[in-house]
């Protein structure tokens, strides 16, 4: 398992590094606008009042009553972490797809499976690499925002809460990863359905959650949506919601455990 993890991490190291750097640069870019947002917050909030509530909930991912765009939590969530979860989700789907489904097709799984490594150990090694990838990218992002607290004093947030807000994104992304691993363990690679279904899960969860905030008929299914359990703005404002984090961690664990169990029964397309 360790050797599989080391190989996967070695293969992904450039991707991790560059994605982390790009996220950090984007974070700094976003934060560079923050002082002017604070300066003009009254006018901006008035402007936002005039926007449809539906549209605002799409971009803020939560309750938009009394929304202030310059409030640090809202700003970080709407301009960064919400998109980080979506982009990181897409990245891990591609990573899982490459490490299992594509590896089945291109023959590299054939080589791996000929070695004294069980299917489950192989999956565990790859899953550990996915977790590492997410943590590395989140760490780069976090560092950019921690640096922002020093560069722009207007961005007055507790570093402890920033840490929880950013590492909190680890859990929803791991749910997406776990779900994709589960699909890869169940669906034959020849069907080419793993990627599309995982992307559907990711985007579907985001859109249904956003719509459910203003379409009453959808509100009963909102608790089933991934994005109902993570909002970096809430963490920055009120601290970690342990219950939500535990739920996300448990769901990710269930998905991965199922994938771990089912991979041993899969008819591999090697």
């Amino acid at each position: 398992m360790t050797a599989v993890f080391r190989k996967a991490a070695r293969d992904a190291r450039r991707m991790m590094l560059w994605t982390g750097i790009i996220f950090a640069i984007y974070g700094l870019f976003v934060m560079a606008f923050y002082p002017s947002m604070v300066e003009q917050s009254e006018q901006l909030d008035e402007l936002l009042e005039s926007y449809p509530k539906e549209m605002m909930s799409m971009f803020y991912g939560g309750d938009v009553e009394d929304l202030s765009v310059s409030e640090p939590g809202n700003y970080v969530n709407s301009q960064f972490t919400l998109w980080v979860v979506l982009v990181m989700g897409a990245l891990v789907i591609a990573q899982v797809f490459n490490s299992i489904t594509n590896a089945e097709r291109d023959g590299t799984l054939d080589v791996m499976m000929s070695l004294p490594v069980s299917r489950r150990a192989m999956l565990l090694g790859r899953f550990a690499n996915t977790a590492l990838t997410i943590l590395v990218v989140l760490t780069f992002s976090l560092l950019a925002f921690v640096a922002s607290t020093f560069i722009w004093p207007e961005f007055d947030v507790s570093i402890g809460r920033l840490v929880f807000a950013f590492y909190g994104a680890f859990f929803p992304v791991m749910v997406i990863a776990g779900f994709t691993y589960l699909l890869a363990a169940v669906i034959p690679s020849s069907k080419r359905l793993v990627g599309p279904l995982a992307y559907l899960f990711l985007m579907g969860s985001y859109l249904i959650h956003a719509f459910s905030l203003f379409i009453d008929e959808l509100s009963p299914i909102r608790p089933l949506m991934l994005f109902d359990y993570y909002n970096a703005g809430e963490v920055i404002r009120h601290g970690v919601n342990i219950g939500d984090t535990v739920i996300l961690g448990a769901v990710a664990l269930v998905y991965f455990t199922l994938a771990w169990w089912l991979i041993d029964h899969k008819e591999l397309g090697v």
Partner: protein
Amino acid sequence: MIIQTQALTHRYGKFTAIEDVNLQVEQGEIFGFLGPNGAGKTTTIRTILDFIRPSEGAITVFGLDSRQDSVAIRRRIGYLPSELTLWENWTGVQYIHWLESVRKSRFLDEALRLADRLDYDLKRSLKGMSTGMRRKMGIIAALAHKPDLLILDEPTTGLDPLMQQAFHELMHEVRAEGRTVFLSSHNLPEVEHICNRVAIIRTGRVEAVETVSDLTHVAFRWLTLTFDQPATADGFIGMQGIRDIVTDGYDLRMRVNGSTDIDAVIKQAAAYTVRDLSIEQPTLEEIFLTYYGKKQEAEP
């Protein structure tokens, strides 16, 4: 017994890839698995290695269950797939180092020795390699940890004749060390050259398991003689082991059985002026039909 399959069957949906395959491979032998493309050789190998699971039947390797004990089995196996894909961002040395970490043993020195034998530079990148070079790397990776059992799927595809010869020598050394080789091929001369026993698989079924000497007796060659005058079959008709004689202008083509005394044929041809002579190996299908014909003749 190193490998034993019992009534092994594998189906892909409604398609039966292999059916009722029974094989026994003894320790210290080079066992050839001969069959045309699509006959089920690779499916059998992948089932033995537990990449895919049998629809029916059972497999033991080293006396262990191929599924329950797959990791323990693979620890003692070296495998070369028919289509080898390597991680292109590595060099050969890095690849061997990684294999060492997976197998928890050190064998870089042996890999370097094998690389020398196969005229291969382990320091070069695995990127953009030709089929032959990838094959060499695959052979080195399969042999370097000195496994008790080598499973090689079409190992010499893409190797030039010199390297094929080097590979055959390596196989003889492996056998001399008491290790076992299970080798699939569609190349009869190669199998004849290095194997002790051969199983012939056709459309998913093992049609025969023979010693190489028995197969050589079943096998035959096509001999074509070109004379300086219109060819005649006179003198060749009725010769022991000569069949299917056809004349075409100056050419005389005949089928010479594997056990035939070729010297008598050459002496008969020397009665004329021979301009050219060529010998062609039969196709696997022809061998199979010959074998199958003999089997039917033998049965009441």
